[in-house]
């Protein structure tokens, strides 16, 4: 039962992209198409599950003072595996993702799970947690990827074979450029918070957005007011 709940929380309740707002670098950089988003999500899921297993297995051996370097070494090992495998078997996807494959090493979702979960829990629970978080991450990337590819390119293409064309020309190129990523992510987050607060109101409760997404913690309006 606990396995199921640890697995399920990553999909929605603690979704890395929409609820924890972690791993923003790949979320903004490689979600220009659904295919890239899925590739990135799968690669990160593999690394996440494997590193969770190793970190959980070694949690009693790793000294607390040097745990972060130890986690990074473990993560970097699996990232190298993914990098070489993808280069060998999926060279096109590897070329599309480029630098962002090695950058999985510093993906906050993976390091975050190693630190917050795997280093304190058993191997089995860590696998469930890694799978759930990885799939939640993939889901978040895929939603962003669909949003951006449909608006920006007017089509969805998967592995060159499956293709759905929605618009021929006059698509919003902005959405497959960098600013479009920020706008798409911000709009989706706002939409979800709005929907959840409406749901909470209907059931008589109140909705608290994640603290770091709260307007009170944003300093944009107060720029220039305080020194330093």
């Amino acid at each position: 039962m606990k396995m199921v709940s640890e697995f399920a929380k990553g999909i929605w309740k603690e979704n890395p992209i929409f609820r924890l707002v972690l791993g923003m670098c790949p979320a903004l950089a490689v979600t220009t198409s659904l295919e890239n988003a899925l590739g990135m999500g799968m690669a990160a899921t593999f690394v996440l599950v494997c590193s969770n297993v190793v970190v959980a297995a070694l949690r009693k051996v790793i000294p607390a003072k040097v745990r972060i370097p130890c986690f990074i070494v473990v993560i970097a090992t699996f990232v190298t595996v993914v990098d070489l495998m993808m280069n060998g078997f999926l060279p096109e996807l590897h070329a599309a993702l480029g630098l962002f494959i090695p950058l999985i090493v510093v993906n906050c979702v993976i390091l975050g799970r190693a630190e917050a979960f795997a280093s304190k829990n058993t191997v089995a629970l860590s696998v469930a947690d890694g799978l759930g978080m990885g799939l939640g991450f993939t889901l978040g990337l895929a939603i962003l990827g669909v949003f951006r590819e449909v608006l920006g390119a007017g089509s969805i293409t998967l592995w060159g074979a499956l293709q759905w064309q929605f618009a021929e020309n006059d698509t919003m190129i902005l959405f497959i450029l960098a600013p479009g990523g920020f706008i798409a992510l911000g709009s989706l987050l706002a939409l979800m918070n709005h929907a959840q607060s409406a749901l909470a109101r209907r059931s008589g409760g109140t909705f608290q957005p994640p603290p770091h997404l709260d307007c009170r913690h944003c300093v944009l309006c107060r720029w220039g007011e305080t020194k330093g």
Partner: protein
Amino acid sequence: MTASDSHTTLYTVSSSPHAHSGASVPCIMFDVLVALTPALLAAVYFFGFDAVRLVAVCVASCVGAEALCRKAMGRPVKAALADLSAVVTGLLLAFNLPPSLPSWMAVLGSVFAIGIAKQAFGGLGYNPFNPALAGRAFLLISFTGRMTAWHAARLPERWSFGGLTMDALTSATPLGMVKDAIKAGDPLPVAMDGATTLRFLLGDMGGCLGEVSALALLLGGAYLLARRCISWHVPVCYLGTVALFSGIHWAANPAAAMPPHFHLLTGGLMLGAWFMATDMVTTPVTNKGLVVFGIGCGVLTMTIRIVAGGAYPEGVSFAILLMNAVVPLINRATRPRLFGQRRKA
């Protein structure tokens, strides 16, 4: 209660300001609309039905988007609509669009301007970027082809004005033509003689709806200055910097550069300098800051315009947006000394 029975007189105790000019947001916005009227008339004169269509679409969808956003955010709707700021945004956005743009793109631009650039930041007074310019930048990057497809001003082939007979300039904007010619190494396509200067001053050239007629925009700017809706700092510093920058550039090599009055009269400079770079919300609060802001806008505009390899022939909108982004820093750097505070050594 009379003033004589002073022992019972109640004095109103309130915090500053104690003297109020009576200006209010709707009042200022109405003044801006009045000031934009000559440019609107010029746009309708030069571009005919397209100008009416785009202005109507932009204003209607800006007001609609404002109402929807306020409703979704659970904030008062009527008060936000009554301050006329959405109407001004819509009109300014329409002035920044080429006449042949499809209406649905104008709607998208308006929704972006109001929904994302203004209401998502908290509404009027909180937006760091000028909403109309943000809408234009969104459209320019998204639909580059459509946003740079100019068609000739809808004029009779030849028309006379005060005894002068002029040809309607076709296709590209003067800035675009000059930039293309310089890129290709061709001789400059526009000679700034008296007749051409007059033509550009009146607005007989390709361009966005509201930017073509420098004369109409100057009239509006003068009205705003007279009504004290804007101060002279930004327009003067902005236009002065552009004139100085292009003057130096021109003096260095007259054969491969356009003279200052060309740069002053073409493109969106007049519209930007008088109506967009003077937006109270997105510009610095101190006069010193306004000077810095104007000079920065001028330098950026001319840099974008004359960098030979650059993609854009016109840089006013991006220059103002970039300077909008550094307004908080300008405000911090130009904060006035508090009374009694020590001068910095």
